[in-house]
């Protein structure tokens, strides 16, 4: 079952589109459910498709195409770090090495305590603040140094 809160939020998104085009809200709906649950299980995706009255495969196609959707447990904090050119030129690699060492994990892995997950990301469109990360997709931290990163992580615990 989708929660009442989630249904209300999805209904808000549906208002943006014509009544007979519920499918348009699928990206927003999946985002809303992922935000609530932490990641999207096949069951969640199926529930979204039922709510929007679209085939399950149509929702699944979208969930697997857009790479901010997480189809497995990504812990309490998913850290996405951009390594694309502008971040690379400003030493993102040093930051990445520090993160991997700090959490004792590689990209696409969950730390032993289940708290942190590291993901290599493509350009986030904020290259003036390189290097940068997002935490749980929506909170961006820019102009990072190793010290600044450690401070942010300290603040999360």
């Amino acid at each position: 079952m989708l929660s009442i809160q989630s249904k209300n939020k999805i209904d808000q998104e549906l208002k943006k589109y014509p009544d007979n085009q519920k499918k348009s809200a699928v990206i927003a709906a999946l985002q809303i459910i992922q935000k609530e649950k932490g990641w999207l299980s096949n069951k969640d995706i199926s529930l979204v498709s039922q709510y929007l009255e679209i085939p399950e495969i149509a929702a699944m196609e979208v969930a697997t195409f857009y790479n901010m959707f997480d189809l497995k447990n990504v812990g309490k904090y998913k850290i996405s770090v951009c390594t694309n050119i502008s971040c690379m030129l400003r030493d993102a690699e040093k930051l990445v090495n520090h993160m991997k060492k700090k959490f004792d994990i590689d990209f696409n892995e969950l730390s032993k305590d289940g708290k942190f997950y590291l993901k290599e990301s493509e350009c986030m469109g904020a290259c003036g603040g390189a290097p940068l990360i997002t935490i749980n997709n929506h909170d961006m931290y820019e102009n990072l140094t190793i010290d600044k990163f450690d401070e942010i992580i300290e603040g999360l615990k």
Partner: protein
Amino acid sequence: MITDTAELRINPVIKKEFPLCLRTKFINNPASIETYLSIGGYEQIKRVLKNKITPEALIEEIKISGLRGRGGAGFPTGLKWSFMPRASQGDKYIVCNSDEGEPGTFKDRDIIKYNPHQLIEGMIIAAYIMGAKTGYNYIHGEIWGEYCSFEEAIKEARAAGFLGSNICKSNFNFDLHAVHGYGAYICGEETALIESIEGKKGQPRFKPPFPATFGIYGKPTNVNNTETYATIPWILEYGGQAFSDLGVKNSGGTKIFSVSGHVNKPGNYEIQMGMPFKDLLDLAGGVWNDRKLKAVIPGGPSTALVPAKNILNATMDYEGLTAIGSSLGAGSLIVMDDSTCMVKTLKRLSYFFYEESCGQCTPCREGTGWVYRIIKRIVDGNGKPEDLRLLTDVSKKISGRTICALGDAAAVPVLSFINHFEKEFEYYIRHGRSMIGNTHD
């Protein structure tokens, strides 16, 4: 802000910023509707509606301005808007493409962050011109803060009577919605973006039919970049000629350049077209760490790399950059100092195109992976003497053989990096390591 355009005609190139799309950026509380109203915001849509200025007259003014699409393709905006069948009955849509994912591009984010109402006014005017009742601003999912703040700006505009029914008591109706992507570079391609708004995978469509005849839900749709729409209110306020005069021949007006990489002050700089590259580099604080400039990508990785010696005397405008074998793109200037290893840099860019290929066309899906694997083996020390020829060959076979421009874009860095820095690639293949004493390792 400079309002005396006569002064500008005498001295067209001024060595400083010219905030036009970002004109509220340096005012307190820049994004609020009060700030925008205080600088004469929403006066243009009021004037247009009150005086019932015809769409034809407005398109003519935009044509005079010389405004060209700021998303990268540079297509003349006035001409594009004249393609929309505005008199036809039925739904029509206008879409703002704020899906900035081209590495090095982050200008639209600042427009939304600092001056969202100018963008909204530009879209209302565009809707009036093209007869659209509904508009969408499709925002890159990663800049979530700006997606949320744009939602708030829409609410402010609606509460003030600039969006919704009977705008300014004129019987003109238009509503605007913010929608978001969720991590797919390809959705910056206009037909992929339309597919995404329809709730599908972002796979580009064949053109023709073009969006002007077959867009969202098969209805006529106009897609423009954020900066393009945000420019419109200024053009109507000061006139198309004044805008054109800000720039140089065939490159009217201003342009926001996103400067990133090895500079002291990365950021967005809105300048008059035609500014010398050196002045823009100065604005961005020059090359960092007192290092020497090695090369520049002037418009994002889909535009060709230019070595320092070729760009130092170039001007920042469409023709200025075409003249040195590259292009303006989205104005995404990526600066590299002399510690940059071109082989490793190309490896990262190739990975990007491989990762972001939507998989629809075989030459792009297979070719981008092939290119990445070859460069990766060179960086891993396993390069073969024939690899450079193979890279060039594969890249040329992707280019021009795909539905959208991603395939062409993927080939551009490969060909331009190897063209200008062939010795670095040969050295890497021969010795299994970079010839650059890279301090960024």
